[in-house]
């Protein structure tokens, strides 16, 4: 091979390799531009004619049209009743939903509490007039007008279903059931490498909730409303926990499997995960004395909705007892409608998920987006917002 040829070929190889690596490193590209409108968003005062279509953004299992399971379909009867053709898109994380909503292409979104306030603050969703939604009257009152679905007494959506982040434990490792979250925090060292935790910045609230009981001097009133000092205390608790964590989970297959095989013996889980474990799995779940964090999802209407009338019709339909029962039972959470329990396929569903149990529900600190304005009413300090939580969470994982 002639020298100059060799040189040229190596140049090409280098260039190709660089390009290949760049393509690998480049997970997403492109930027969003544009500004949100500054005009005040008003709630609808009356409903007009149906627009024939409605586009919905939701968690998997919330808008089932029979394409996943022909027997599971509550979209068709909505289309038959209202004449609004549904197009839906599912998302995997609240953060993905946030960027999808910014496209302005969706009339309706089903948002968890770690997303709702971000959507409201960035003016992606409009206030909702609950008077226009007959099904709203049956919604449990302990879910209405909460910090994650309203601002200053103005409703921004209809509650859908709710659930708790429970403590799961292996009954062989724990012959007597634990009573406190201390088994995953202060007293987690005996289970080193077998502790599991939810993989999201919002998990910082679990540590903050624990500190509410165990370090009263910090003065945490709401685990989603932490000033810099309180966040630092929660982070240092989670850093200590990190040494004993075997793995963090965000997809539920991973959590189910690691409890089944005994790779995890104690940690956060959901009722639906416990239900999907093999019957002989020696795992139980419980609500520790400090309480639990949880979620309460909200159906919201996009600020730039092209079909606001069909959007309202969907909100009413999905909150109606029968559909609410069907949808929440399919997903594995408690329904929000007080009349839904009469319509569940499995009559034990409401008992399993503690639907309507106000005492149980009051122990749940529902996911709420941390924002700079303190949610607990303090005005003398600035609270840490979600982006600070995200940075902190990355540092905790290390």
């Amino acid at each position, binding site marked *: *091979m002639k020298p100059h040829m*060799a*040189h040229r*070929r*190596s140049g090409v*190889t*280098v260039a190709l*390799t*660089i*390009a*290949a*690596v*760049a*393509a*690998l*490193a*480049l*997970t*997403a*590209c*492109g*930027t*969003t*531009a*544009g*500004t*949100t409108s500054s005009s005040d968003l008003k709630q609808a005062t009356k409903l007009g004619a149906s627009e024939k279509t409605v586009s919905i953004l939701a968690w998997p299992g919330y808008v089932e049209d029979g394409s996943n399971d022909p027997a599971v379909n509550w979209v068709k009867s909505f289309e038959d009743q209202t004449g609004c053709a549904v197009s839906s898109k599912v998302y995997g*994380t609240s*953060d*993905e939903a*946030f*960027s999808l909503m*910014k496209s302005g292409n969706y009339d309706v979104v089903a948002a968890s509490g770690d997303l709702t306030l*971000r959507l409201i*603050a*960035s003016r992606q969703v409009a206030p909702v007039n609950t008077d226009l939604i007959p099904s709203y009257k049956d919604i449990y009152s302990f879910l209405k007008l909460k910090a994650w679905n309203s601002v200053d007494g103005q409703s921004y959506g209809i509650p859908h279903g709710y659930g708790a982040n429970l403590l799961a434990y292996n009954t062989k490792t724990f012959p007597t059931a634990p009573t406190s979250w201390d088994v995953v925090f202060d007293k987690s060292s005996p289970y080193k*490498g077998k502790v599991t935790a939810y993989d*999201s*910045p919002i998990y910082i609230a679990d540590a903050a909730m624990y500190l509410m009981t165990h370090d009263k001097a910090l003065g945490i009133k709401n685990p989603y409303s932490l000033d810099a000092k309180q966040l630092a205390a929660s982070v240092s608790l989670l850093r200590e926990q*990190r040494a004993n*964590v*075997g*793995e*963090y989970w965000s997809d539920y297959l*991973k959590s189910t*499997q*690691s409890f089944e*095989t*005994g*790779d995890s013996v104690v940690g956060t889980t959901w009722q639906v995960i416990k239900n999907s474990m093999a019957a002989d799995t020696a795992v139980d779940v419980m609500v520790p004395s400090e309480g639990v964090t949880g979620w309460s999802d909200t159906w919201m209407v996009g600020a730039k909705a092209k079909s606001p009338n069909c959007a309202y019709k969907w909100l009413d339909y999905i909150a109606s007892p029968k559909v609410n029962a069907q949808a929440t039972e399919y997903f594995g959470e408690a329904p929000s409608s007080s009349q839904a329990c009469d319509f569940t396929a499995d009559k034990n569903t409401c008992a399993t998920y503690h639907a309507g149990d106000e005492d149980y529900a009051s122990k749940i600190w529902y996911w709420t987006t941390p924002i700079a304005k303190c949610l607990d009413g303090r005005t003398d300090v600035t609270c840490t*917002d979600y*982006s600070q939580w*995200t*940075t902190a*969470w*990355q*540092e905790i*994982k*290390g």
Partner: protein
Amino acid sequence: MTTQSETRVRDGAGHRASVFLYSHVRVRLALLISAPLFWLGLVYIAALVALLVTAFWTVDSFTGEVRTDWTFDNIITVLTGSLYQSVTLRTLGMAVLVTIADIVIALPIAFFMAKVASAKWQRILVIAILMPLWASYLVKAYAWRSVLSNDGIFQWIVQPFGGTTPGYGIPGAVITLAYLWLPYVILPIYAGLERVPDSLLEASSDLGAGTWRTLRSIVLPLLWPAIVAGSIFSFSLTLGDYITINIVGGANQMLGNLVYTNVGAANNLPLASAIALIPIAIIFVYLAAVRRTGALNSL
């Protein structure tokens, strides 16, 4: 009749274009490669430039929109933050370990295939090595998740000898990544060994060299470029990975995870771009080092 139709064909536009192209080599070349070059430019170069540029922008913390204010903040954060330093070192260490493991495993297999096995076995082995590539990456990673589990097959095999499974963590992730990239390392080394003439090996042995001497003085120098080629694959693929570490890596994260969370959870594309520049910088250094050894010249 025949003559007339031939004349018509000769006067056709297609024919004239063909004649033109035949006599204009450069135009022909331009037409031929402009489409693929456009693709290359759009997909590789434009994306890379966009990445570089985005790293110097910021995100409005209130609206979450990317603002085109020029700043070095992201680069400074990535260079000085202890999180990024420790994750970079971990990722780099894992890439080196995976590469070494793959080369150590690939060398004897490739040598057997190229120099010992019969033609029939050679074909069977090539198929056997390519076969895992037919299966989905995710299925393979999840398969390793169950292999490495507490009640998995790994534990079952080593338990009688007093061993335990490494479980989910960095060792587990290194094993899984080494498994995933092994075909990409075996194939170039195998191809390189095929090009080592048997006559040289025979000559070496005729001159009295033992097996090890022949391997060290004849095979290894000739094979070096192929080993380097294989190492580039396993090294760069490991640098960019973020899924395997999620499945079998326990609570650990790599550079890819930081990029992923910053694009997703944190909604901070500029910082993600700045982090993505780390593996690019590392691979530049790696290629420069490889180039100094001269291995790229005979690739």
